[in-house]
């Protein structure tokens, strides 16, 4: 299990849990449900937001919010 914020660009994983109920609710309705596959696609400079590919669109969230998201790493297929 890894924190989303710590993943390198290009890493693929599976959504596990979000340790903040307010944030969880907001991300759930955007399609970040447990088990959903994600990929880190970009990181903004100066510790800015992280962009992830989820359900075939790109979602951006702040780095400290990404610290609250647990992701299970997936091997490249």
């Amino acid at each position, binding site marked *: 299990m890894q924190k989303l914020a710590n993943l390198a660009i290009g890493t693929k994983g599976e959504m596990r849990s979000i340790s903040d109920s307010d944030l969880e609710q907001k991300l759930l309705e955007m399609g970040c449900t447990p088990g959903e596959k994600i990929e880190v696609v970009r990181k*903004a*400079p100066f510790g800015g937001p992280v962009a992830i590919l989820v*359900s075939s669109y790109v979602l951006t969230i702040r780095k400290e919010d990404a610290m609250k998201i647990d992701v299970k790493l997936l091997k490249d297929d």
Partner: protein
Amino acid sequence: MTKRQIKIALAGNPNSGKTTLFNAFTGLKQKVGNYPGITVEKKTGKSTFSADIDAKIIDLPGAYSLFPKSLDEEVSQQVLCNNTDEDYPNVTVIIADATNLRRSIFLLTQVIDLNMNVVLALNMVDIATKKGIIVNVDLLSEALGIQVVAINARKRKGIDSLKEAIVNALDEKPRKPFLDVSKIFKGVIERANEIRGIENNYASFLSLCKQKLSGEVINRCALNQLCKKHEIIPERAQAKETVKRYKAIDKIILSTVKKGAPVGRYQFTKRVDDLLIHPVLGYVVFLSILFLLFQAVFSWSAYPMELIDGLFTDLSIWTANAMPQGMLNDLVVNGILAGLGGIVIFVPQIAFLFAFIAFLEDTGYMARVSFITDKLLRGVGLNGRSIIPLLSGAACAVPAIMSARTISSWKERLITIMVTPLMSCSARLPVYTLIIAMIIPAEDFLGFNLQGLVLMIFYLIGFVSAIVVAYLMKFIIKSQERSYYIMEMPSYKIPDWKTVIYTIVEKVKVFLFDAGKIIIAVSIVLWFLSSFAPGNKFEKIEQQWAGKSDAEMHIAADKLEASYAGMIGKTIEPAIKPLGFDWKIGISLITSFAAREVFVGTMSTIYSVGDDNIQSIQERLKNVKNQDTGKAFFTPAVGVSLMLFYAFAMQCMSTLAIVYRETKHWKWPTIQFLYMGVLAYLSSFIAYQILS
């Protein structure tokens, strides 16, 4: 026979092509108000559906769900969940981006569960095909139990089939819910229905989750007790329901959508983003785009502006000769035409500015700018999303302040609202242009238009001061609320030109007619104030100069000074003298408190009263002499001081009204008015004292 009137609501995720579909439905038959007293959040339009059905189309703000995260989404929730709302639709059209079906269907199924008549408009099927995504429309329709129509909003394809489907949906029978919440929370929903007195399972569930649905008096206490009794924690219930709903959606997606390998499009977006979100080049590109924008606004619009200026001069001469001599002639030529000409001339610049901003937003570039600036803007108490209001503030603060609604944190939103009017809006453009043309030579500097460069410096002053003020406010405004930045980064799109053109037409219309009305009224009042004086002062002046050389010129100047307008100007002159302004500018300052652009019309009117030569306003002002020195009145010191005053002062009733509306308190517009006024006075004072 009277036609049947129906109401259609358009809802969908942001970036799904909602506005394009709205334009396809209504063409130019749209009603959008940007000024106080008119509903702003709802765009409505008319469309003919068949020989006996007319539809009112309501364009709702983009939303991802019926659990609002921002004010924008709240508006959508309130219209859709309140069957007593005047805009409660007969049929709701959910527009979905076929490349983003999973997330789009989430909102759709929520609306289905509210027991509404729903049609799904599946947009961007062509792009989905390129991405390797094939949607089986018939199967999808069957699985969801509603009509699904594939459309291409941009190419206006499928619109007739969609209209047909909407008409069919009018008399639909109630169907079973997509996700039956009464089965997930057994015994609870029925009881909640009883408490609310409304038989709507999903609306009751939303209420139970502490969603504030408008139009109902809820018995919060009874609902809370109900939650307690069944050990339901609203947030957990909402999360549980969301996960179940997505599970059900995933089943449908699995059976109706085939995914192949993506081709082209995604790769294109990725490659462009390598440059536009690059840690270094990304910022360079952003600044270059802004730089180009201001160069273009200044130099491209020069030609049409000259044309308009010439036209108005000709029109004034023609009118002056065609009408019988006398008071009315003077009122029309020197009052109305002079004031109006001063304003129409700026239409080209405003059109270019709005076109650029619409272009940057529609391509998807603004989302990238938000992404690379979030961290920087947060440092000064703003949010990555603030960049959109700030940049649109360069066009007009009124819609810009409204677009701050997408910021979910109250503190960040409030700071954005408070500083957005510091961005140099299009109403300041006429003032800047007029003064720059007088004090800055039309030369090239390092290959760039020097006047354009100076203009850009003034835009930068606006931006920098907005950032500094935001930083100060960050420490003054207290808030415990958490701030979020959760934003979709859409694929790049070629903007829909029709949509861009509609935006321009709409904004220019608002500028010309709404501002034009004030300007004509002010021009007429001013003409009266400057053409009459108390008692017999005018006669005395005429007697005094009778027979002397240059009598006409002296009479005109003295008359203006003695007039009512002159008296008002003279009264405030001591206060503005340290800024380098005389009583004539004083009059203009007062009149432009209604709206900044009135300044140009006022100057034009004041300086043409008593002047028989019809000239363009720029020539007229260039020829104004300083009464003490005999040299040109508009020295660089006066010009810079005047521009700084306009850069900072809050001279816009509409903005103050919209700030009141958005913050729901007079405290904020008052603070804004005061701090901007102080900033304006001090900076003009310092600039004039140093430069003169």
